[in-house]
């Protein structure tokens, strides 16, 4: 049913519809509205789940790990340094232990200096942890991605956790019309979780064992990587099935916007894509042939799909709400895009922008296109030079 809803509340509705047995999270801006809403749902008997108010994010994800290992579907949500970074050790652990936990990330900058505002440094910094990463452009997409995430994560040839990422405030605190499926519809799409194995006194197993060198560790890492590659196919299949049931297709890991005959292409993740699309429309009206490749799945990285989408475009501008400090291209996404098109002669540049909530306007997108045309890139965009 179509309703006007705050992004965080739509995410909480999505989480509820997935019927988690255990919810554990710790409040941090801008994720708080999600967990507050879930607490209300439990208090009102709308959601039959164990809701654990824990003492830190480290505990929140550890609780989820324990419940998941015991066979429950679980849910958590977090953000930024105090949240995701405090969890970081558990984040890697959960993937290694192959628990299909789904966690929402309301993307926020990392301190210092302290910033509660949006960029994507938090989730991007944990790109190597073994979770799949989905990025939503608007409230509808990020809501739907939760259903897809559980479905993909729980496939027995995947069994890996996933982040559903969306821009803090810009999406988490914005009211948008959103179609929330009914419980019956989601039950038909997402069957109850069937663990591949679990902690069970009737069939004892050991989980999280010690891998003495040098016998098995590398093979474990290899298998986790293989599973994450398979998660790509599972996300795609779940996105397709979702499209058939709900009319919103998410089978692609990327989405191309006005890419036919483009001379310059943007690559972006999340809410920024909306601004970029509007800018492209204006540029096209002025005769500048620009297009966008939106990345919806960042892990596993959809290199083939991106290469196909960018084929024949001379200049590519990757818009990065993150910085890989000290790296040559500055942004973390650019090098992966560049690698995807190696040998094609396409020029790929990174532009670091929008950090700590700095606004990005249509004219900025247009200016970046001009920089890319001139071959100027791998740089910050939009610095206030007067304060430097």
């Amino acid at each position, binding site marked *: 049913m179509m309703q006007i809803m705050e992004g965080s509340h739509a995410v909480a509705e999505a989480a509820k519809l997935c019927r988690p*047995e*255990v919810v*554990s999270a710790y409040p941090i801006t801008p994720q708080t509205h999600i967990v507050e809403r879930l607490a209300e749902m439990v208090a009102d008997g709308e959601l039959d*789940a*164990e809701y*654990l*108010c*824990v*003492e*830190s994010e*480290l*505990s*929140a994800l*550890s*609780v*989820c*790990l*324990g*419940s*998941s*290992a*015991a*066979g*429950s579907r*679980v849910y958590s949500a977090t953000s930024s340094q105090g949240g995701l970074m405090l969890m970081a*050790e*558990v984040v890697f*652990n959960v993937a290694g*232990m192959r628990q299909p936990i789904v966690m929402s990330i309301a993307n926020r900058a990392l301190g210092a200096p302290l910033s509660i505002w949006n960029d994507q440094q938090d989730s991007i910094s944990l790109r190597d942890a073994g979770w799949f990463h989905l990025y939503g452009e608007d409230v509808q997409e990020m809501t739907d991605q939760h259903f897809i995430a559980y479905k993909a994560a729980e496939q027995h040839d995947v069994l890996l956790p996933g982040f559903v990422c969306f821009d803090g405030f810009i999406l988490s605190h914005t009211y948008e019309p959103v179609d929330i499926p009914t419980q019956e519809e989601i039950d038909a799409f997402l069957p109850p979780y069937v663990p591949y194995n679990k*902690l*069970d*006194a009737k069939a*004892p*197993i*050991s*989980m*999280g*064992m*010690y*891998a*003495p060198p040098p*016998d*098995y560790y590398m093979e474990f890492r290899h298998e986790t990587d293989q599973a994450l590659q398979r998660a790509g196919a599972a996300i795609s299949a779940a996105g397709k099935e979702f499209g058939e049931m709900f009319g919103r297709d998410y089978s692609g890991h990327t989405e191309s916007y006005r890419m036919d005959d483009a001379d310059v292409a943007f690559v972006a993740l999340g809410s920024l894509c909306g601004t970029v699309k509007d800018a492209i429309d204006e540029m096209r009206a002025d005769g500048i042939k620009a297009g966008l490749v939106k990345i919806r799945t960042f892990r596993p990285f959809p290199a083939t799909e991106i290469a196909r989408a960018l084929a024949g475009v001379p200049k590519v501008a990757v818009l990065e709400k993150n910085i890989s400090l000290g790296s040559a291209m500055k942004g973390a996404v650019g090098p992966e895009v560049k690698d995807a098109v190696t040998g094609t002669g396409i020029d790929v540049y990174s532009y670091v922008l929008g950090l700590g909530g700095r606004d990005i306007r249509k004219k900025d997108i247009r200016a970046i296109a001009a920089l890319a045309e001139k071959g100027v890139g791998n740089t910050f965009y939009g610095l206030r030079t007067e304060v430097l």
Partner: protein
Amino acid sequence: MVDKSLELFDCGHRACGGCGPALLARLILKGTGENVIVVASTGCMEVFSTPYPETAWKVPWIHSLFENAAAVASGVEASLKHNNRTEKVVCICGDGATFDIGMLCISGAFERGHDITYICYDNEAYMNTGIQRSGATPYDASTTTSPAGRLSTGNSLPKKDLPPQILNAHGASYVATASVAYPMDVMKKVEKAVNTPGACYIQVHTPPCSTGWGGFDGSKTIEIAKQAIECGLWVNYEMENGELTAAKKVRRIPVETYLKAQKRFRHLFKPQAVTEEIAKIQAIADANAKKYGIDIERNE
């Protein structure tokens, strides 16, 4: 009553000879029986009992990190509760995991009052990483991060008084201490804890770590463990709903007997006795004896 003849902690693990925690693992599972899920922290026991693809655990067992066992156990318990399952949830964690790095998760789990039993195997240092001090290391023990030296007599802080001052203060339903020297007592306390609703805590002295404490043969484990109790540096007691309900009485021996047998205290005796330091340790034992009323009077 659980069947005490069941062997649920298998042989073939890789603990050192005379390892107290290895003995304890076996005793704990005799106390819990088969219907249990064990949550472990990173440390010696985790490493020696689960070298992939082998495991010594015949019950479900999970290890995540050094510091988060109590939170993982909270999650396991929440899942069991939601599904009306009957397994008991038992954490088995080292003193470093318990006294130091895991305190946050323990505090949360005990505040929430999960139906779990948290057992700390106390070998009084970080053994797995090479015998560094922990909050459970006794006063004056020489460890690799509190070495005795020209200006140092070893660990400068007394052992943290964790069970009463932290766990009992959190409102734990049952708090007890035990020692591998008294196996029947360990099994009895474990059985009692897992059958007491709410969060329970047992701290078990698992001396000696012949590797970490040094100076004696691995066959002397029980002997040294007994001396710790006989001298009053370790007290076996029980606290129920906040009240001290039992403490093992002893005819005390001087602390020297216990200290002298261990390399970690050798600097107090060689090249010559450091009498004022030995006196300070004796005072700790005397204070314990008074606090818990463990001295057997002459006419008793």
